[in-house]
């Protein structure tokens, strides 16, 4: 077990390094840089000399490999540097916004799981009936609707039907839980519905597979109640792939909030990301991508570890 985990852990490092390298190169290929953009307001009134000086100040004049090495050395010590646009420490820029996005992501996950598991089980039990078809249509519709549009429609509905608009200014949960939830539940619903679609389909197919197993037949044969068969035998075994899908989607969710945050006027990671691209804020972009991709890689590692722990066959492959 330990050997497998160590091997799996070590495989994670080159991927992370690769992500760092790809990001580093990709964003420097984007035309224009932060210095040029910051002084572009003056329409060429700035001398080349000043631009060069400014570039030297934030280290953009050094060769690329040197910049990369300096940055990487910082990352190893968990120091992401300062934002090239605002000059504030990256950690300060990200902290609050990450908390916001994380909260929406967690709430969306809860919405998704609450929707997906009962619907998926129901569809599997009533396979090929109208119940199954309705669940299928409901989940495919969830995948089809862009969550930003769903957000617009949700806001519109509340405005027209209830003459009420959710608060548009962010209040931290610990300041006023109600105010906070009244704002964040809507993006969580819009994103969670879409997210539930994948999980519903996974629950359905996993349940269908498990229900055909011999041990379910045995459980039926010995006269176990249907309810008990479902909860103890079937659902428990079907949950593994469902949890994997939920975990992987969760890792992607924080990055995927990019568009939805725009609609709900949320100042989260997604909005920060778009701004960072617009400002060519290299350091901030690098930190954000490392955060999102790193989260994905770590979640994947944890899932593999959990699999190996649950299913001994995997360890010996």
């Amino acid at each position: 077990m330990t050997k497998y985990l160590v091997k799996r852990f070590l495989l994670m490092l080159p991927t992370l390094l690769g992500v760092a390298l790809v990001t580093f190169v990709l964003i420097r290929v984007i035309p224009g840089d932060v210095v040029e953009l910051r002084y572009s307001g003056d329409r060429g009134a700035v001398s080349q000399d000043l631009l060069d000086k400014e570039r030297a100040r934030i280290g953009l004049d050094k060769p690329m490999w040197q910049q990369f090495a300096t940055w990487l050395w910082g990352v190893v010590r968990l120091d992401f540097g300062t934002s090239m646009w605002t000059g504030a420490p990256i950690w300060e820029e990200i902290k609050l916004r990450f908390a916001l996005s994380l909260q929406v992501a967690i709430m969306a996950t809860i919405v998704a799981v609450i929707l997906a598991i009962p619907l998926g089980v129901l569809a599997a039990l009533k396979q090929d009936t109208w119940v199954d078809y309705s669940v299928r249509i409901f989940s495919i519709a969830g995948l089809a609707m862009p969550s930003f549009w769903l957000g617009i429609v949700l806001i519109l509905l509340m405005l027209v039907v209830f003459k009420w608009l959710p608060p548009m200014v962010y209040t931290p949960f610990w300041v006023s839980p109600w105010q906070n939830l009244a704002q964040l539940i809507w993006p969580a619903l819009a994103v969670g519905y879409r997210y539930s679609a994948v999980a519903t389909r996974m629950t359905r197919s996993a349940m269908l597979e498990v229900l055909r197993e011999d041990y379910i037949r045995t459980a039926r044969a010995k006269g176990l109640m249907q309810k008990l068969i479902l909860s103890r035998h079937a659902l428990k075994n079907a949950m593994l792939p469902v949890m994997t899908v939920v975990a992987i989607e969760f890792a992607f969710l924080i990055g995927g909030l990019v568009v939805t945050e725009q609609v709900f006027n949320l100042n989260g990671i997604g909005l920060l990301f778009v701004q960072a691209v617009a400002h060519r804020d290299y350091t901030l972009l690098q930190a954000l991508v490392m955060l999102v991709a790193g989260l994905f890689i770590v979640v994947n590692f944890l899932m593999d570890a959990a699999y190996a722990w649950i299913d001994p066959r995997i360890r010996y492959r």
Partner: protein
Amino acid sequence: MAISSPPIDQVGALPAQDGWLAITHQFCRRRPLGAIGAAVIVVMFVVAVAAPLIAPYDPVVNDFGGMLAAPSRAHWLGTDAFGRDVLSRLIFGSRTALLVGFGSSVLGATLGAVLGVASAYFGGRVDLYLQRLMDIFLSFPLIILALALVAILGNSIPNLIVAIMIPMVPRAALVIRASALAIREMPYVDAARAAGFRHGRIILRHMLPNVMAPYLIMLTAFLGQAVLLESSLSFLGLGVQEPMAAWGLMLRGAAVEFAETAPWMAVFPGLAISLSVFAFNLFGDSLRDALDPRLRTQ
């Protein structure tokens, strides 16, 4: 089928085996949902091709006299903040959606298939390095990679197609490699190798045609995602640019600002996106069920 004697009038005319019509007929009968999806896609194609004939107005001409007009006889779905006819823009927007959707999915799935099959065929070092490279690209969320690529390439339609295609390549390669691994062990691949064919020929002529099922499955699964991604990028202002008609772009700016007074601007483009992605997914799902015996639910 052989046991039950067929009605007299059908004895003479043997069903054309594997004819396109027969396959289509069977697909429609067995998978009504998929057939509905396919029908919507066909309608979309017709609308896109015949856009200049169908659209009642020019989609890009402003009419500042008739801004934000509610749906009426003259403008069935109302007008936008520039007085442009929403219906006409929707009709022309289908061109953008289909072009970017099909362009990027076909390219992404094909490139992924070639990489996946090559990775499985060569195995060893090549496989290991290719897989690690794919892992790296898989760690980026779809939209973030596409966003960065659009920022690099600029936002013309061909660039948009490339930016949406690249994140799809590793996803297709992953799935297709898994199928190709099994095919590599087939006797006919050994035979081809024994006959002294070159690697390129074996990969393209012997292995690629046999991963058609997962290829088509990935391709149709990508279609909906590509349309969604294009509309998301356009919504963020990084995709298709004004005044060109694109559904995501129609939801940007004024549509949100005036959502209360002119809801038609915000509702209809979203419906168009949803309906088309819904159709792509319905069709893709049914195709997957039909092509992949392991997933067949009977």
